[in-house]
Structure formats: structure tokens, C-alpha cells
């Protein structure tokens, strides 16, 4: 992949006096899925909206297919929207209650392909409905007649109908039951493979992100603190926040040996080391040895001052962390970390492998 599909440079977003995004830089290449992981207040949803210019004020650069999205005219922006789509978190709220799902899915066609006849539009909408597993006969129904999972499929259908080059998924499975999440995740996997589409998958659910992503970025209080290939991030996290996140995920005591075939190294994915099989465990893993830290993230005033945003909660804090905000530096192949101590071998934390 030569020129990246999306380049984000020094993106900053402020909400009044509060900095929500504080200088984010990353690239996204065609066909790859990048997971964006963060907790509440991390700015992950804000980042998505900033990229789409659904928000002001935004500083910095967002280059998509070579065009500066933040500075172009409204008309040019709208023209590019066909290639840059988003699926939102609340499936029902993101659909106009007064439009049938057929009309909702067909709207992008009306906007970008005005030459199509109504019949052609209907054909494409029906095909899309079938593709997302809903069935063409559902086109005349209203959103409130569907379940959450079905509404999410409609949202995905609407986003996909023009075959965008980049799809942003903002917490798309967070409000769904576990037994339904898998259906949506698999649908996204299939669609992405078919269309060779790039996906920016935003979620606080690390396990789901792991399932979908080639690369993962971790965001904390408006800054990216770690970027790595998926397997590398989960096997050898380097930023203290990433480690704390992974350690905090409650684990099922699993004994059943997975019978499903494991993910082979896909052509677009660099070969990743395979994980060792999970040892059969009965008991829940012991609580991690991360010391009990104050749960409060840093106050905005302190955030504005220089220094690492994580310093109030970090078990490895040094004096330099108070004064210097560590930049993202490459510590391994495609592995970037923003931490003054990233080069050291920090005491490993005993979370379940």
C-alpha cells in the first residue's frame, strides 16, 4: 500500500476550554481494519466526528484520498462523503423514525446517483438488504419495528450501499446482546473482505476489537498512546495504560478447547506470531498486580499543563513525566508507544495470557 487512504495530522478538537483531542497522528491504508480502543472521555467518538467534519472547531489536517477534508468547501466535502461513511452506536436513534428502512438505505443513492430510476434504486436497496441478512421484503418497514441488531444491519446497509472506501464504526456492537454481537462482527468481517474496504473500528470492548483488527490504536484523554499490530498489542503491550486496560478486562474461566479454525495470516496482514493455546483454567485468574490507582482521570487544568496525561495513574511514573509529554516513537516493527520508559523492560504484569 503506497499512499495512505487517510492521513490524520496533529488533529486537535476543543470543547470550550476542554481539549478533547490533543494532537492525533495516524495513517490508514486501503483495505485494513484499524481498531481504536479507549474508555469514556478518551475522545474516540470525537475523533470519528472530527474526521468526518461533523464537529467544529477542529485544527490540524485530515487528508482523505489526497483531499484536505477540513479546509475544502462544503460541496467538495459532500462529494467525498460517498467514500467515507459511518455507522453509529445507537442503531435506532441513527435512523429517521419517519422513513422506511428502504428509504433510509436508498437515500445515499438519491443524493449521489440522481440519475438512477426508482426501480434501479429499489433493486440496489433490495440487494443490500439481502446482503446484510434482512431480506428485501423488509424495505417497507419502519425502524421501530426492528430489534437493535436488525437496526444496526440497516445502518450498515445504508453506509455500505455506495461501496465506501473507508467505513467508521463507532461502538456499533456496544448496545447489542452478546449473542447478536457476533452476527454483526461477522457481517462486518465478510463485507470488509469482499469490498477490500478500510475500517476504523472504535470500541471500548477490547475482545471485539481484537477479533476484527489488523492494527490497534489505544487512545487516552485525546492522545494516541500506543499503536501496534493486533497480535503484538495484545501479547506485548508496552504502554502502562494499555497494560492496565488489558489487565482490567474480566476473564471467563474457560476450559473448552476452541474447535474453530484459527485466523491464518491474511495477505494484507503482516505475519503475526500465533498465540500459544490457552491453558485449561478453572479458576478465575488472580487479580492483576496493578496497584489500586485513583479511578479519576486527570483534571483538565492539569491536562493543559505539560506532561504525560497518564502520570496521575501510572505505576511507573518518573519526574520527567511531569514535565514532558512523551511523543509516539517506534519501538518495534509498526509498534509505536508514547511513554518515556518504552525502551525499558518494565516489570511484567500478571494478567492472563
Amino acid at each position, binding site marked *: 500500500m503506497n499512499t495512505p487512504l487517510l492521513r490524520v495530522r496533529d488533529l486537535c478538537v476543543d470543547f470550550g476550554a476542554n481539549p478533547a483531542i490533543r494532537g492525533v497522528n495516524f495513517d490508514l491504508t486501503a483495505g485494513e481494519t484499524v481498531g481504536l480502543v479507549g474508555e469514556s472521555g478518551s475522545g474516540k467518538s470525537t475523533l470519528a466526528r472530527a474526521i468526518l467534519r461533523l464537529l467544529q472547531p477542529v485544527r490540524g489536517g485530515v487528508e482523505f484520498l489526497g483531499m484536505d477534508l477540513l479546509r475544502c468547501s462544503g460541496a467538495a466535502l459532500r462529494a467525498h462523503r460517498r467514500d467515507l461513511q459511518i455507522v453509529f452506536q445507537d442503531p435506532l436513534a441513527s435512523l429517521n*423514525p419517519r422513513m422506511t428502512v428502504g428509504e433510509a438505505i436508498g437515500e445515499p443513492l438519491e*443524493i449521489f446517483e440522481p440519475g438512477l430510476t426508482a426501480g434501479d434504486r429499489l433493486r440496489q436497496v433490495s440487494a443490500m438488504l439481502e446482503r446484510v441478512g434482512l431480506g428485501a421484503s423488509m424495505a417497507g418497514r419502519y425502524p421501530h419495528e426492528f430489534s437493535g441488531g436488525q437496526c444496526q444491519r440497516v445502518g450498515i446497509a445504508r453506509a455500505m450501499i455506495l461501496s465506501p472506501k473507508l467505513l467508521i464504526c463507532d461502538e456499533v456492537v456496544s448496545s447489542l446482546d452478546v449473542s447478536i454481537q457476533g452476527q454483526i462482527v461477522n457481517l462486518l468481517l465478510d463485507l470488509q473482505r469482499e469490498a477490500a474496504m478500510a475500517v476504523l473500528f472504535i470500541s471500548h470492548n477490547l475482545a471485539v476489537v481484537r477479533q476484527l483488527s489488523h492494527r490497534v490504536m489505544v487512545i487516552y484523554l485525546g492522545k494516541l498512546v500506543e499503536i501496534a499490530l493486533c497480535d503484538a498489542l495484545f501479547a506485548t503491550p508496552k504502554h502502562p495504560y494499555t497494560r492496565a486496560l488489558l489487565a482490567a478486562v474480566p476473564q471467563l474461566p474457560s476450559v473448552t478447547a476452541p474447535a474453530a479454525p484459527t485466523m491464518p495470516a491474511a495477505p494484507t496482514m503482516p505475519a503475526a506470531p500465533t498465540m500459544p493455546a490457552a491453558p485449561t483454567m478453572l479458576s478465575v485468574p488472580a487479580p492483576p498486580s496493578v496497584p489500586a490507582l485513583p479511578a479519576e482521570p486527570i483534571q483538565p487544568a492539569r491536562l493543559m499543563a505539560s506532561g504525560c496525561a497518564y502520570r496521575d495513574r501510572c505505576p511507573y511514573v518518573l519526574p520527567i513525566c511531569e514535565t514532558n509529554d512523551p511523543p509516539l516513537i517506534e519501538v518495534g516493527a509498526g509498534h509505536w508507544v508514547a511513554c518515556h520508559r518504552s525502551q525499558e523492560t518494565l516489570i511484567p504484569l500478571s494478567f492472563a495470557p
Partner: protein
Amino acid sequence: MGAFADEAARRLKSNPAAVAALSVTCAIIVLTLIGPWISPNDVQTLDWLHIAAPPGRSAHWFGTDRLGRDLFVRTLAGTRVSLAIGLAASVVSLLVGVTYGAIAGYIGGRTDHLMMRLIEILSGLPLIFFVIFLTVIFGRSEYLLFFAIGAVGWLTMARIVRGQTLSIRQKEFIEAAIASGASTGRIILRHVVPNVIGPVIVYATLTVPQIILLESFLSFLGLGIQEPGASLGTLIAEGAAEMEAAPWILLVPGSFLALLLLCLNIFGDGLRDALDVKDG
């Protein structure tokens, strides 16, 4: 929209008061239309034999006024005029108000600010003085009446629509529409307006009686419809003058007006209840 209309219609049908009110209103409308045919009398004919005759005693079912004109036919004519003005002015205020409010609410910012200031200025207008002023300049006529009502009828509608638009604007499906590349015009037309229609319809049906009352009031003051034309307001004015000697001249048009307003208001309430639940 189909599903919502069906559901609302069903709820409306199960509200006996609203159904009764609607029926009576329809009956009145039908009566005003066919009245001239079923009654042997005419609006303009002066029946010298039956001056100020009480109801029921002659061929004049509702009696006559002090010029001998048949009250039944005149009242129906007056009701027709009042209804026509009421409906027409409501439609205009609906169209103007919805457009104005939706644009102000959606675009927001300075545009909204300016648009709302205009509304506030117009709201502060003392209507009666305004109408008198216009009457002095242009003379009395129905068109003047229409203009005056039109100038103020859309204000509250615009406010309501703007408020509704402000709350709709925050909803995620509007964001989704923007992200889909929809233009501002498209968003207002296809996403905002259909979702504010509920309160708009209700307010529109409640506007009709308000406008009828306003027109009646202006005509009562002598500022609107002129002789020999009749509206409920002028009829009531005439009747008020004869109140002691021939009360029916007041009571007949007065009862019609009261009944009409009552039915329209009850129907409007019923409509609001029917549209209110789970409204988008």
C-alpha cells in the same frame, strides 16, 4: 408516515369526544354548504312582514333580524365566511410558520437570532391598533382582515416549529444524514419537517378556532367584513344591539360560533392525544 397515520387514526377513533366533535363540525360545514338550498329563504331578502320575528313561528326557522332577513340563512352564510377565512388563514400561517421555524431552528446561530428577533417584534405589535391604522389608510375590506390575521397568525407556529427543530437537530439520525452527504435543504425537508409534523398538525387545528375568533372579534368591532356581507362576528354585533328586545338575533349566531369553537378545540385536543404517544 403510513404506519403513524394509521396508529394515530386508530387512537383518534377510540376517543368518543373527538369523534363527536369532528362529526358536529362536519355537520355544520355540510349545513353551511347546502343550507341555501334547503331553506326557502334568501340571505338578502327583506321580509317586511316578519321584522324581528322570533324563531319557530313562521317560515323563518331561526327567526329574522331587525331588517327582516332570515337568520338561519344569514347565520349559515356567516359561518361559511368565518370558516373560509379561518381555514385559509390557518393554511397560510402553517406554510409560512413551518418554513420559517424549520429554517431558523436548523441553521441556528446568527440567522436564527435575527429571525427570532423579527418574530418578537411582530409579536409585540398591538393588533387592534395595527388593524385600525390599516383601515384608516386602506379603508375597510375583507382583504385587510386577511392581511392582518396573516401577519400574526404564523408567529406562534414558527416558534413551535423552531423549538421542535432545535430538539430534533441534536438527534443522531440528523448527524447520520449529514454524514451521508445530504444537503441542508434536503435535511430540513426530508428529516426535520416530517418529524415535527405532529405538534404542527395539532397546533394547526387549534389555530383555526383562534383565527375564527379573531376574525369575529375584528368584524364585531366593525373592522372587517362589511354589510351586506356577513360573518359570525358581524352577526353577533348586530345581535348585541338588539339583545334586550330580540335575543335570538344574538343567540343564534352566538351559539353557532360557540359550538364551532368548542368542537374544533375538542377535536384538536383529541388529535394531540392521538399523535402524542411515542411521537418519533
